[in-house]
């Protein structure tokens, strides 16, 4: 089987670069995008196995909107083909216990498979991705 393909969408090129190097060193193929629009193009062109994206990009809710688009339950949605790609969301929400997202609770609001809070440790990011690809 070919190396799993990960799409990293974040507006900070240096952060993306760090993640890309770490993921490639751990045996992943990595595609990157700077914003939601570019991310959508890459999803269509590269068909990633998993998407890592930031909650906030150019506009505060861009990550939310992109994930909502992709996971749209409407059968006529033009992104239906991509709804199965798991999303790992990087959240910049400060560590506050009453503000933690959970995939169960926030399914409608933020329909993604998993969250990881910033600042991220690369090891835990890689662990999480591996875990998600296994279960998926």
């Amino acid at each position: 089987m070919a190396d799993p393909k990960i799409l990293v969408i974040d507006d900070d090129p240096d952060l993306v670069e760090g993640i890309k190097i770490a993921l490639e060193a751990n045996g992943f193929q990595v595609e990157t995008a700077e914003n939601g629009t570019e991310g959508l193009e890459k999803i269509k062109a590269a068909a990633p196995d998993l998407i890592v994206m930031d909650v906030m990009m150019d506009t505060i809710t861009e990550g939310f909107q992109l994930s909502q688009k992709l996971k749209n339950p409407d059968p006529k949605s033009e992104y239906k083909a991509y709804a199965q790609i798991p999303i790992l969301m990087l959240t910049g929400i400060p560590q506050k216990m009453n503000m933690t997202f959970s995939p169960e609770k926030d399914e409608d609001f933020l329909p993604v498979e998993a969250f990881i809070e910033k600042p991220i440790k690369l090891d835990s990011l890689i662990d999480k991705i591996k875990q998600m690809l296994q279960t998926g």
Partner: protein
Amino acid sequence: MRADSSPPPSAAGVSGREVVTAKRKWGIRLRWILLAIVGGGTPLINAFSILNIPEIPIYQICALLAAGNGGLQYALQRILRTEPLADSDAIKKWDITQLALDWAAVSLMFHYTGGAASFFLPYFLLHMILIGVLQPSRNRFYYIIGMALTTNAIALLKFIDAIWPVYPASFIPQRVREAPGFVLLVLFFFDAVLFISVLIVGRLMNRLNHIIVSFSEFRDHLEHANQRLELLNQLAKDTTSTLGFHPRLRFICRQVRKLMNVKGVAIYLLDEAANQLDLVSACGLSDQYLSKGPVHPDRSIPEIRRGCFHYIEDAAKDASLEYPEAAMKEGIVSILAVPLQARDKFIGSLRLYTVEKREFTKEDNEFLLALSGQAAVSIENARIYEFQKKQDEIKNEFIRLISHEIKAPLMAIQGILEVMAKAYVGPLTDKQRELVERMSDRIDSIMETSTGLLDMYQWESRGRVELTPVSMNEYLSKAATMYAEIAQNKNIDLKIHLPETELFVRSAEWDLDIVLNNLLSNAIKYTENGGRVLLDLYALEDKVILRIVDTGIGIRAKELAQIFDGRFRAPAAKKKDPYGRGMGLSFVKKIVESRKGKISVKSVPGKGTEFVLSFPKA
């Protein structure tokens, strides 16, 4: 700027009109009553007494009077609808018409009921006195003279049979009533009673009128004073309102214009840098006048700076006025400049413009003095409010800056350092790796500091917070779950002891977040791999006690003594002086105390640390 140029509402003159209107309406009402009495009374009198009044002429008189009175009533309503003033020409004509109608009706009645021998003489007297009373004094005089002359003439003409004598059968024998002495005597008494009564009642009425007028003036005056007080009161109360700066000034202008009954009002505020007064709000003045330019307080009216009123009586001639042509064009005759002083500081001027030379009374001046003080404070408050709003914007920008603009690049650096430390981009020497790790540690601590700063900033600057009873059992379970992974990564045994009964603390959850995040993350951070951290919750009397115990490196006595004192001290090298940073503990103490709690700490270096929090039970 929007200038309100409608005419100033008049404060007085309403009550005078009320009195005059009421008198005329009473006149009409009395005439209707009289018609009913005469119309209904005549057949009754003829049927039940020996009197024999000629009914046909009486009914004709009644018809004339009814038509006239109806017409008068209609005309009065029309006049009142269309004419705003109490002494218009239309109302004067109306008065004369009314008198003419009465004169005609009374004269005819007098004739048909028997002249000097009329049984109704007392009634005619009463009628004339009443009409006299209801009339303004000049009309009253002419009416009485006219009536006296007419009635006397009719009586005398009847006596000499010059007009067809109508003598309804009377109690007075014909012999008596045809004697010249009788007629002269009756007329003498009639005239005497008429004139004396009208004179006395007229005097009384004049006095009463005078009293009514002064009373209504007094009422107007009181109302006016009351309105002024209300405005002062409103401005005083307004200090806490969120009305914006310009709406507040416009409100002051409009109210002063109304209460002082002047053409226009403007507020100028001092621009200290330029040393000039700039127009900020006005009403009742044209845009053309308002755009005349700034006013220079030192050049034109130095008195005002010292807190004195400055009155320009004749704008055309006063040399102290900067724009006399503009004032003349606008029709302004006098200008009163009132200084605005907030906390003894001159901040501007309130100006009143009149189209006539105005005597400002002592009360006016006192009112304006109180008002200007109150208005100045109100303006200052509005300025402070605007300033605070701006400060809030700056604060929000600051928060955004810290949370995003500073943390985002740090996170990127952190990621790249980690890539280097993990040798993903090629092997490092031991020294290189150590240096990279030290950089990484320092960046960690900057991020923690910024998070702490942000927390503190938001906590300090938030408004009123709703405090609710928070279940500590539930809360600590959640916290333990959150930190389980971090503890596990360091192989630390994170234990939690909860009592069986639920314990509640009155707080906002966010407060507890900050407190627990600080204490728990410190406990885990400063405990070596394989150590233990315990969260222990229990009740002690009316207190809820939370212990956070670790088996970490501990704190030296010297640092322990001042652990809650420092703010965010510059992080010292972590490995050498682990608790030297005192990260956020003073802030933690502040939050705990704000919820009526207490915090204490015990520590043995090398053995561990124990923080004890105690809150009142909710």
